């Protein structure tokens, strides 16, 4: 509000500016908070490993055509079937002579697509249900939370399976099936976060200034919910990836010839005993990816002080 007291010398390094105990602007305060979070996060080596894995995954998906040839991922060279690892085929080839390395690289795109789409559905739906429940309380809360409880008590994979069976296999249907069973925790989280802040003075102040409910929810409450939602989402990513891979393994995810890790493991089963790499390497990719998200999520949660 007022200018910084002149006794404190102006910070001369970026670090000092970020860690300034009395920030001069909102922007500085916000960046400073992020920076402190990062400093705490940095102390956790496992979380850093998780971050590295996730960043590597995103880069791999973005630059897949530079890392491997798109052709090698789908092109069948039947005379090169089931080759072990070599310089030409780093991870060997599968039963149709396709390069497993290239397929793993391009498979990251499928995985990230599913995860992104599920997040884009699940978070808004969860907020849409949870925010009004916590904000208005009363019967709205009861109805919305009952609905949430119903969906929470559904077996996730089995329901996704039934949906994929009815709608037919494919990425879109896998996304719908997973989203349908993944939103309830976000609704609960959003409700809980809203409840704790509903009576806060800054909400009352906004109400007295005549702000509409919608405005209060959108500008005051949502931003405060987001950090715990994001942490929860990071932790959930691993589960989403595993469910998606499971659907792929059962043949209900991305359809051939698209490279999907779960489906790759499934085809490799037939040659498991003699050509172990066909099934195990894509599985390893699933494992490392979900481990990365778990480590990252754990680290973020610790920084946020166990919230979420």
């Amino acid at each position, binding site marked *: 509000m007022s200018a910084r007291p002149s006794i404190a010398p102006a910070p001369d390094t970026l670090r000092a500016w970020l860690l300034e105990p009395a920030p001069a602007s909102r922007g500085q305060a916000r960046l400073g908070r992020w920076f402190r979070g990062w400093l705490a996060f940095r102390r956790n080596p496992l979380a850093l490993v998780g971050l590295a894995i996730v960043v590597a995954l995103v880069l791999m998906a973005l630059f897949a055509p530079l890392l491997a040839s798109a052709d090698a991922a789908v092109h069948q060279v039947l005379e090169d079937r089931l080759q072990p690892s070599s310089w030409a085929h780093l991870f060997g080839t599968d039963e149709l002579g396709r390069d497993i390395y290239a397929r793993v690289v391009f498979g990251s795109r499928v995985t990230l697509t599913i995860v992104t789409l599920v997040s884009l559905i699940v978070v808004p739906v969860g907020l849409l249900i949870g925010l009004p429940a916590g904000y208005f309380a009363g019967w709205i809360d009861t109805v919305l939370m009952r609905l949430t409880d119903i969906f929470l008590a559904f077996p996730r994979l*089995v329901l996704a399976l039934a949906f994929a069976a009815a709608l037919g296999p494919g990425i879109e249907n896998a996304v719908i099936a997973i989203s349908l069973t993944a939103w309830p925790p976000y609704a609960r989280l959003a409700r809980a976060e809203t409840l704790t802040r509903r009576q806060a003075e800054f909400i009352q102040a906004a109400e007295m200034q005549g702000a509409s409910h919608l405005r209060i929810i959108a500008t005051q409450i949502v931003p405060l919910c987001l950090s715990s939602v994001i942490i929860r989402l990071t932790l959930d990513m691993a589960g989403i990836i595993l469910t998606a891979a499971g659907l792929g393994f059962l043949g209900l995810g991305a359809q051939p010839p698209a490279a999907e890790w779960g489906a790759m493991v499934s085809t490799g089963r037939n040659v498991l005993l003699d050509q172990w790499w066909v099934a195990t390497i894509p599985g390893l990719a699933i494992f490392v990816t979900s481990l990365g998200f778990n480590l990252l999520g754990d680290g973020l949660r610790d920084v946020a002080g166990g919230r979420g």
Partner: protein
Amino acid sequence: MSAATTATPAARGRVRRFAGPVRRVAGVVFSVLLTFLGLTCVTFVIGRVMPIDPVLAIVGDKASAETYAQVRAEIGLDLPIPVQYWRYLMKVLHGEFGTSVITSHPVLDDLLHVFPATLELSVLALIIGVVVGVPLGVFAATHRDRWQDQVIRFVSLLGYSMPVFWLGLVGLLLFYAKLGWVEGPGRLDVSYDDIVPTITGLITVDSLIAGEVEVFWNAFWHLVLPASLLGYLSLAYVARMTRSFMLAQLNQEYVLATLAKGLSPWRVVWVHALGNVWVQLVTVIALTFGSLLEGAVLTETVFAWPGLGLYMKNSLFNADLNAVLGGTILVGVVYIGLNMLSDLVYPLVDPRARDRW
């Protein structure tokens, strides 16, 4: 109301003590019914969005329009949706899930036939998960942030991140194909099939009842790998939750007080603190069991385990929707039942929860 006001205080107390649990049980039962309705709604909708026309499947595509309309009316597809749902619900409540296309048995019979195999596997896995997971979680909590804790946390995080079907394949590759420590896929070697009469459906139990020790050991060595791998996955979750519950307990003042009174730390941790944690663990264990049943679809596919999961998977690929939905409802009901059980058991193990009744 008037009866309660004129009653003696003691009677009023009795009424209150009685009314509390009744209200709570009624609440739980109500929410269970609601959830069950939700579940059947979803399976009903799934059954309707199926791209296959059920009438066409019966009459064939050469049938006349009249036959088509007649059959359509016979199955009840011309009725309003709520009526159709009501009829569907009544059928489900009577255990009529229709006939399976593959086996041509009623789906319910099939489900009851395959379910014991799944039960055998998941119960053993759950036992492993709890017997190993809880002590690990307690140990991690008492050694917070020391290397023991880090190791346990990391091991359980690995379990958390592992795709179950991949773990199964790697396990088979290593312990069956390379090392030969365990038997391979399936519940029994083919040569032992049909020796033991089915009583409980759990082969390990049935073989012992029949006194067929050889069959028992064969079944055991088939069971041990999938059960241990699933046990590891549930252990991961159980240990992690136990650790965080225990940390919350160990920070409380009563722990310090009991220690100050000279109780052995061992007793304080394993009797007092863990005793308070069991309550929350009941829920965790119920959820773990639920996820084991769910994961059966994947595990049983990998291990060719003739249980519910494999049944559902095979039905899925033969477009046998009756069987898939029947299985979904069965898993859903067990799942909902587990949730209810943990809600009801809660106050039994925790006097504090009883006060909140």
